[in-house]
């Protein structure tokens, strides 16, 4: 049984999700192939071939895949599906965008956000914002799965799997890329960071996030946010952690001025160590925090910065 892993990348850099996906894939079948779909992405294919456990890398390098438009990518993956028992992608906004189309084209269901593999047809996934964990068995001939990468360790590197080219070009005429606004930051990405410091409505405005950024820079951390902080316009949407934002599981998660709504907890409660700083001793966030500090964040944050 062969598993096709859809590589997460930005045409230059292979993302760490892919290494975690390969590890998940080895639990589903014996042979793991990685598909790199993009434009000018030969470098990414070379990086993918280094992942231990990968038997082959397929690369579809064409301008039509540059922005990984769901319509084109889904047709590409669908055209390759015949060789595989499982097709998996990361549960990122890329994977969530095109994978359900692949499933529909194959007339199978998609299993979303899988966090554990029990056997080739049985998987574990959170439902109800992580307040329940379902073990599900699929009878479909091909399993189409998005994987919550944070739930798996990364496969090692040190391989040099053969890279072969996929010529198929699928271009749709109904959707076109117009522009993107990429948030630029020198800090680690939220989903890859070992330490995350997140701010909530308690931060009061966007400028105060500089206090979190200074601490993040000292710790090599990423900065996240609650929905309330994003909705209020303090920070961009891609910083939202939670049920409907990014799901993270760093070594250390520091929640500052965040109350701990179930939707926020859903995105961070698998972190190894959780710190909460909140002036309200009754805040729900303290129920999941290993270390809680009841304090005014405007006093605590400068002290932390000075103490690092």
């Amino acid at each position, binding site marked *: 049984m062969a598993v096709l892993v859809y590589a997460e990348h930005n045409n230059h850099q292979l993302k760490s999700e892919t290494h975690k996906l390969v590890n998940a894939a080895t639990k589903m079948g014996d042979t793991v192939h990685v598909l790199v779909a993009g434009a000018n992405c030969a470098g990414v294919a070379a990086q993918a071939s280094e992942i231990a456990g990968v038997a082959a890398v397929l690369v579809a390098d064409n301008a039509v895949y540059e922005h990984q438009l*769901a*319509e084109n990518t*889904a047709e590409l993956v669908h055209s390759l599906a015949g060789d595989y028992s499982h097709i998996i992608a990361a549960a990122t*906004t*890329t994977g*969530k*965008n*095109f994978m*359900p*189309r*692949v499933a*529909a*084209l194959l*007339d*199978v*269901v*998609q299993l*979303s956000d899988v966090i554990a593999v029990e056997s080739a047809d*049985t998987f574990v996934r*959170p*439902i*109800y*914002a992580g307040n*329940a964990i379902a*073990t*599900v*068995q*699929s*009878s479909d001939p091909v399993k189409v799965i998005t994987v919550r990468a944070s739930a798996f360790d990364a496969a090692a590197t040190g391989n040099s799997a053969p890279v072969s080219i996929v010529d198929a070009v699928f271009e*749709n005429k*109904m*959707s*076109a*890329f117009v*522009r*993107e*606004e*990429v948030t630029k930051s020198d800090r680690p990405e939220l989903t890859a960071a070992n*330490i995350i410091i997140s701010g909530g409505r308690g931060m009061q405005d966007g400028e105060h996030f500089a206090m979190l950024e200074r601490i993040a820079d000292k710790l090599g951390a990423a900065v996240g946010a609650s929905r309330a902080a994003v909705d209020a316009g303090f920070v*961009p*949407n*891609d910083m939202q952690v939670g*049920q*409907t934002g*990014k799901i993270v599981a760093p070594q*250390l998660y520091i929640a500052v001025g965040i109350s701990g709504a*179930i939707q926020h907890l859903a995105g961070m*409660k698998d972190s190894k*160590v*959780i710190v909460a700083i909140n002036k309200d001793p009754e805040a729900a966030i*303290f129920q*999941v925090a*290993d*270390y809680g*500090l*009841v304090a005014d964040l405007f006093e605590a944050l400068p*002290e*932390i910065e000075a*103490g*690092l």
Partner: protein
Amino acid sequence: MKILVPVKRVIDYNVKVRVKSDQSDVDLTNAKMSMNPFCEIAVEEAVRLKEKGVATEIIAVTVGPKACQEQIRNAMALGADRGIHVECESFPESLQVAKLLAKLVELEQPGLVIIGKQAIDSDNNQTGQMLAALTGMPQGTFASEVVVEGEHALVTREVDGGLQTLKLTLPAVVSTDLRLNEPRYAKLPDIMKAKRKPLDVKTADELGVDLTPRVTTLKVTPPPTREAGIKVNSVEELLSKLRDEAKVI
């Protein structure tokens, strides 16, 4: 232009769900049920497009047991013109819902389907994309802005790296993210009026869709609980715990 808006009945987002002791499922007995929050955003967006003169009719659709009609009436109170209830005993899987919706798209020929990005019960995030694939429509998922210009929709999407804008040729499927709009509340007179708006009840049989499930739930368990932590008294104590006890900084 018609807009089709699928709305799902789910547990209210404020309720913390519990797992049944026999691990067969979650326990929804007496739980407060509401319209999925992302569907509320979808209805609101459709209503705004109608108010701008872009849309002429809004059709709310729901799939599930009889009780789902409450959410259709709710959508009508918010501004949907009529409703379609595809009645079935329980909630079908996303693929089946997408197939039912695809049949309704064929019958109604909407210019736009605005759908929630994710149902907060199943957390699937797939029905809209499946519908788009089944009908051959383009998709704009996780939308934070939708601008309709003639035959096209410009959709700004919330993606992991920031924002992406796509130009879609109508008809298209758009799935809503949290920042698309802030839904209004239904006013009492509109709630009364909604009771008289037309609601059509159909079955999966009539639409020719097989509802046999593909996935069996073997068990549903509560998530692992975190051990209660401690409160520290100062920043100094916090930092020393993180250094010496947890060894994470």
